[in-house]
């Protein structure tokens, strides 16, 4: 019987060995960016309560966790696949192994998901130390996981389609970086003009940020954002599947 979890573990074994060998580097690279955002935005630029009725530090930390889930998930996955495709030529052998395409896709997201989850959990722990407004619920880890998997799947897409390292960097500069600042992570998108607000609302990080913030601050369950994140997850997965089956990489 097809056991997707067993196949995902088999596919990701090499990447997990890599993480095990490089735990300090993995943690530092996953945390430096988010910690700088925390220092620069939460402490350096703003203070006091927000319109949402919570302290700005408590408002910003879930946004920074969302950023961390996106950058860690996307970068780790996209870079690893690009290196395996172009430099180690080992991606071909992954495709050749007798595993299902879905296992291959989700197996390649594991390195991004592990890095992203580690970053999210450490940031939440740090946030709870800094402010009393943050809470943990049974939804906390699942929503982190949903966000990390979604952006890691986007990383798979980028890693498969990029022809060179600079192409990948360009995609990160044009797509990932603007989302980092604009998608309601560090300030509410209500402050933006209507047309811009609508465009930004459609982006996945806006919903990751909204969902993580809602659960971390004990607000109502953000069903719409969870639904939209799930749609993004399915779309990214289908894109990856199409690229692999049609061998467009």
């Amino acid at each position, binding site marked *: 019987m097809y056991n997707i979890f067993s196949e995902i573990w088999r596919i990701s074994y090499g990447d997990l060995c890599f993480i095990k060998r490089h735990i300090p580097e993995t943690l530092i690279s996953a945390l430096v960016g988010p910690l700088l955002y925390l220092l620069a935005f939460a402490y350096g630029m703003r203070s006091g309560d927000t319109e949402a009725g919570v302290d700005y530090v408590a408002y910003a930390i879930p946004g920074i966790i969302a950023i961390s889930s996106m950058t860690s998930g996307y970068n780790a996955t996209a870079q690893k696949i690009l290196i395996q495709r172009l430099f180690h030529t080992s991606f071909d*052998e992954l495709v050749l*192994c007798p595993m299902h395409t879905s296992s291959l896709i989700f197996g390649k997201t594991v390195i991004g998901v592990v890095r992203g989850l580690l970053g999210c959990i450490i940031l939440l722990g740090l946030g709870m130390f800094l402010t009393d407004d943050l809470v943990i619920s049974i939804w906390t880890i699942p929503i982190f996981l949903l966000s990390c998997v979604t952006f890691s799947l986007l990383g798979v897409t980028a890693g498969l389609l990029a022809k060179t390292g600079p192409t990948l960097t360009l995609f990160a500069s044009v797509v990932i970086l603007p989302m980092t600042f604009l998608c309601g992570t560090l300030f509410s998108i209500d402050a933006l003009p209507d047309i811009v607000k609508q465009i930004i609302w459609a982006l996945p990080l806006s919903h990751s940020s909204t969902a993580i913030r809602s659960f971390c601050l004990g607000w109502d369950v953000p069903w719409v954002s969870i639904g939209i994140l799930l749609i993004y997850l399915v779309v990214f997965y289908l894109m990856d599947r199409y690229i692999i089956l049609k061998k467009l990489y």
Partner: protein
Amino acid sequence: MVDDIIVAEGLVKRFGKLTAVDHVDVRIRNGEIFGILGPNGAGKTTTVRLLTTMDLPDEGRIFINGLDTSTQFVDARRRIGIIQQQHSLDKDISVRENIIHHALMQGLSLKEGRKRMMELAETMELTDRLDTLVSSLSGGWKKRVSIVCSMIHHPDILFMDEPTTGLDTQSRNLLWKLIRNLNHSGTTIFLTTHYIYEAENLCDRISIIDDGKIIAEGTPKELIEELGNVTLVRTDSDEPQFSYFRTREEAKEAAKDVGGEFSVMIRKTTLEDVFLELTGRTV
């Protein structure tokens, strides 16, 4: 078990306007060492990528052990192992981790993978290097690791794309010995090479490929016999001219008619002569 372990019919692969593989037919018999000989850019690697299901053909069909690779590719992939031109190993993890990863990817359990790894590592004299990072190994050692990885699941057929390119003489001789041993233990070998000596000495049968087309196929002996076992070489100040004869006596007779301005040599015909005649150039 089928007689022809690989049957490919009418394979075509195009990259834009370039036809890299042009209506290629291949039949590989069970248990043989089959080689594709051709210069760089002739279509050897593309043919391997099509046969191993790494790339999809634009036209044609491939059967591995009777399995149609267009529909039964997961089962077909269980039957094959591949050693690519470049070492497709994860350089940032150890030899042991790479081998176990390959075992897991091929569906073996951790226990089976470890057992098989130790058997193969011993054969390949890798036991002392299992915990070495792949990035610190030389080309010859990486090749040995690649062989272990590709053989971990007992494939019926092993594809080797230019296996000895970049190796020193010692490593090359060792690899040839290993290829013969693998073949004697029942593994069918499909290799590509641009070394004529390698094709002539290692392969039971070869195909010569040029510009994406198979232009000759047979045992090295058959290909040479078809051209003529004996070569008469006439040389003046320009390019040497070659004539081919079935016997040395025929060549000697022909040599008598050669003018005194030429120097003449009679020798055995080689596969290189066959290649030169067929393609108009050396490999």
